[in-house]
């Protein structure tokens, strides 16, 4: 799993209820749209994300309906598991960095 995919998943995990539109997600993560969409498509194929069209009247807003992506239940569990695994690999429990921040707190 790439760092960019983890970044996307982390953002989805922040708030499970609200979904994300592709371009907003790219703006928020700094991942370019051309790189982000392959990630979204792969995650949706794997069943971690699902997408639905936003609930507005296209005539009223004057544009087609946007596609909103949300984590599935399975996706949320899998994303949490992946993120913890990667964080643990980055900063082991005995690492001086973690013990120092604990002392400071």
């Amino acid at each position: 799993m790439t760092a960019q995919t983890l970044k996307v998943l982390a953002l989805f995990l922040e708030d499970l209820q609200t979904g994300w539109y592709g371009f907003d997600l790219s703006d928020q993560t700094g991942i370019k749209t051309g790189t982000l969409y392959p990630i979204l498509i792969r995650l949706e194929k794997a069943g971690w994300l699902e997408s639905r069209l936003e609930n507005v009247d296209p005539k009223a807003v004057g544009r087609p309906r946007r596609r909103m992506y949300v984590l599935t239940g399975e996706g949320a569990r899998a994303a949490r598991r992946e993120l913890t695994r990667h964080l643990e690999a980055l900063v082991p429990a005995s690492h001086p960095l973690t013990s120092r921040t604990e002392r400071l707190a």
Partner: protein
Amino acid sequence: MNLAFGFGLVALGLVGLAMVTALQSLLADEARAWLRRLPIWLVRSAARQLPPAERADYERDWSAEIAGWSDRPVSAIVKAMHLRWGATGVRGSICGCSVRGGRLKRALDVGVASLFLIAFGPLIIGIAWAIRRGSSGSVLVRSVRVGRDGEEFRLLKFRTVDGDGDRFRFTRVGRMLRRTHLDEIPQFINVLNGDMGIVGPRPLMPDIQESCGSEAIKLRCAVRPGLTGPAQLTIDGAPSLEEIMRADTEYARSRSTATDLALIGRTLTAALRRSHRV
């Protein structure tokens, strides 16, 4: 005299200034409209890179997204540009077979094909004349093959046989063309019109593709077939369909402009030694 010249210069300057101002305000409108349309145009162009079945959906999705950025035109253009540049990656994700490279490969394909068609010009005319003279019938023949996105196209070859149906035989010129693979030259035209690339998996006939299973269909959905492929150069003897598929898939996953150039070079040396199969 000096005074008249001075007035003349000032008048000319004023007229010039008025013209530049007028042009500027005129073009400003044009530029603004053009700037507004650019992201939409880029998004459409990006969607056109996707498999036909998915094209309309993504064009709708992306048009909707880009419309939400109309108040930030510069960001909208940047986002649409990245989408266009990343379109091959999006296509790869949809097809389930990631493939690298896009614009540079196509530019290289068109460049090499044009160069070869020009260089082979006299030879092409000579071969066409020999085919016409040797037997009755057309110079070129078309054969239906499966291309990118599973879309069928007509592969061009010089005619090498005489007669029709089951009762055909190689013509004298034809046998020579087959042996030297010169009968494949017309495929540079297939490259120019976008059906094929120079390097890529060889386009299969529809019924053979069917028998190769999902791996072949996935791969051939993602890439343009080519004139010369890795399987034709790296495998010796008579490879099985499975071996060809493995080499082609490996190529699609790891291709780069450098490997393409190397394969073109090896094809040329192999063709000169007349020891390869295409």
